[in-house]
């Protein structure tokens, strides 16, 4: 190998979370066990090698049996998954094929196992059914278990990081994200993902830069490489030259100074020049993020996503566990409100143990409230836990994916049932607990007046509302440009919900990404939103924007906006009216020549 210094390279991806970090890359690959050595056996070693493979399988079987034994009885679905994994171990296509390969090709067990996986992958990748193709994950899971036993190493995964690094991965699953020693991660770089992906949410709440959707970052970057991540630009620079490093070090300083400047004022209320107060809250997913929301001046938690406790494991959480978790968030925030959204498992966050079949079109499938109403046993456990936590502070209960009055009535009925149970057991809860509906399905926005009769507040989830309203999957590159948050239809739906809320005396909040963009703050204020909730990182900028606005002016601008007929025209109008007052661009020093592939 020559000792030449590798040339600087720029890789362009999708901005996942703003910020700049410079550091060593740490490559984590779910299939990092793929680096398998091949060696040919002497005839006499074959039987021994088969035995070694069978031993590794037996060990995996025992591990799974232990997991099954440890699982509580009531989580039947989970046990089924483990049983399925156990069955996979002995499946002919898996077990039989590997043994045959060892015997016929006279190769080591690791290599034989790898060819088995490759073969199964080829077969499954041809299957047109998404659900079945996704079962490949189960095969990979079982494969990794056996491979680990064969190679005799520990899981060389994400939980082993022990120095400050930039994580480079094909994708980061919710389960993996929950294992990360967050203080060691400076930034994320992934092959997969987009602005609404899980990695992006995590990175933004942790306030670390992320560049996603690079497609082949894991092939180009090696552990130990020096890289620069420019989250806002969606750029990753590999092997930076001296002048590039200098430029980014300066940019990083300027960016951090800017953040600090707006953060300093963030603990004061967000009040307009004419005295209208708006609550600016944080969206969180992990207990740990409460601190980020408070540090950034959050007036409360506007959206506590509760999926994590269900997803980062393969056993359903108990009521006690959920209760302890919710209670902690509520206590830390007290007296500030915490809006707890009930379980919203969906297509890209499917918990194998809970949702066996996400259907061909998960976004339109059995998710969120639909799933919970179909599984009242699981739902009641969560409702009881939330109710119990409400005794320790200010809790609001939020139901996701409401599409009609029936669902809301049923959900409230189950909540009442949970409350009665607690009464019987003499357990305390907040009897004045406010209940709200997420408005993220167009039908809910259209019948907001009817839904209003059954709730204390609305929270508009813009990411889904836009997706469903415009029929656009933002993660699909072919149509991503049609995902326009300022589309007149979206604006009309939001305006309708705002008008109904005022009319019916229902509190109005927004918890989608749209709330986080200070450019949207003027018309949201004008429409009369009481609360905006966002990634904690965005709180200071939005609070800053509110302080620079006059609510009565904003109300007039809403009327102008409603007359524009394209998203572009609306954006232009906002920029023309407020562009100067809302500094968007983060100042940067003069750019050096950072060219892709420049030597």
């Amino acid at each position, binding site marked *: 190998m020559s000792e030449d210094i590798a040339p600087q390279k720029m890789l362009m991806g999708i901005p996942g979370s703003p910020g700049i970090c410079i550091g060593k890359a740490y490559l984590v690959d779910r299939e990092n066990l793929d680096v398998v050595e091949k060696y040919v056996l002497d005839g006499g070693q074959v039987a021994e090698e088969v035995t070694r493979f069978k031993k590794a399988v037996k060990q995996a079987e025992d591990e799974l049996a232990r997991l099954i034994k440890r699982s509580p009885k009531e989580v039947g679905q989970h046990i089924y998954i483990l049983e*399925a994994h156990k*069955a996979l171990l002995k*499946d*002919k296509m898996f077990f*039989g094929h590997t043994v045959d390969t060892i015997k016929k090709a006279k190769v080591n067990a690791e290599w034989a196992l790898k060819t088995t996986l490759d073969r199964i992958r080829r*077969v499954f990748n041809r*299957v047109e059914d998404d659900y*079945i193709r996704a079962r490949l994950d189960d*095969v990979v899971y079982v494969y990794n278990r056996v491979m680990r036993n064969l190679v005799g190493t520990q899981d060389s995964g994400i939980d082993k990081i022990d120095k400050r690094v930039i994580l480079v991965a094909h994708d980061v699953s919710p389960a993996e994200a929950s294992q990360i020693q967050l203080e060691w991660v400076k930034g994320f770089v992934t092959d997969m993902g987009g602005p609404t992906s899980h990695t992006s949410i995590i990175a933004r709440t942790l306030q670390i830069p992320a560049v996603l959707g690079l497609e082949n970052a894991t092939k180009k970057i090696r552990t130990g490489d020096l890289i620069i991540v420019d989250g806002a630009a969606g750029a990753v620079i590999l092997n930076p030259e001296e002048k590039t490093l200098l430029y980014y070090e300066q940019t990083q300083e300027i960016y951090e100074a800017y953040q600090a400047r707006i953060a300093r004022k963030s603990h004061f209320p967000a009040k307009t020049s004419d005295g209208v107060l708006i609550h600016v809250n944080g969206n969180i997913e992990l207990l740990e993020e409460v601190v980020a929301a408070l540090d950034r001046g959050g007036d409360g938690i506007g959206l506590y996503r509760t999926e994590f406790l269900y997803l980062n494991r393969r056993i359903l959480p108990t009521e006690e566990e959920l209760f302890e978790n919710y209670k902690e968030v509520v206590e830390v925030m007290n007296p500030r409100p915490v809006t707890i959204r009930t379980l919203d498992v969906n297509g890209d966050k499917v918990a194998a143990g809970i949702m066996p079949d996400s259907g061909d079109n998960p976004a339109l499938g059995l998710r969120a409230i639909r799933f919970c109403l179909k599984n009242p046993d699981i739902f009641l456990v969560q409702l009881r836990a939330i109710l119990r936590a409400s005794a320790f502070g200010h809790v609001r209960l939020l139901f996701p994916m409401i599409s009609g009055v029936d669902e809301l009535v049923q959900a409230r009925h189950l909540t009442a049932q949970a409350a009665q149970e607690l009464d019987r057991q003499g357990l305390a809860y907040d009897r004045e607990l406010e209940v709200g509906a997420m408005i993220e399905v167009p039908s809910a926005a259209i019948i907001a007046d009817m839904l209003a009769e059954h709730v204390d507040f609305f929270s508009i989830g813009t990411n889904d509302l836009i997706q469903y309203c415009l029929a656009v999957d933002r993660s699909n590159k072919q149509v991503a440009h049609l995902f326009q948050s300022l589309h007149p239809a979206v604006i009309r739906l939001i305006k309708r919900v705002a008008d109904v809320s005022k009319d019916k005396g229902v509190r109005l909040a927004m918890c989608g990404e749209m709330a986080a963009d200070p450019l949207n703050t003027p018309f949201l204020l004008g429409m009369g939103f009481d609360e905006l909730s966002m990634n904690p990182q965005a709180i200071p900028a939005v609070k800053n924007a509110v302080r620079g606005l006059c609510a009565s002016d904003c109300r007039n601008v809403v009327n102008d906006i409603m007359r524009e007929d394209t998203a572009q025209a609306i954006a232009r109008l906002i920029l023309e009216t407020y562009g100067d007052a809302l500094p968007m661009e983060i100042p940067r020093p003069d750019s050096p020549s950072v060219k892709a592939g420049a030597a």
Partner: protein
Amino acid sequence: MTENNPAGIRLEKEVVIVNELGLHARSAAQVAKMAQKARGAIFIRMKDRQVDAKSMLDIMSLAAGKGSVLLICAKDPRDEALLNSIVALVEQGFGED
């Protein structure tokens, strides 16, 4: 028995998938578990593909949805009763409701 009888196949029966989920993980596992008790080979044919009924993975790779027509074949005549039970299992929709 039909005239369409490639070498070695002794028994075969046609069956239509009636359950909503089709031959997904759970149902495929049920079929494989049953087929593993057979004395001889058991195959499932769908259109131009043939898979080993003793392998849940192989069965799943058919992605046989509701309404798919399968031909289940047994090589050993002693597996006739077993073949019938597999057919019955499929016809009853794997006990799904």
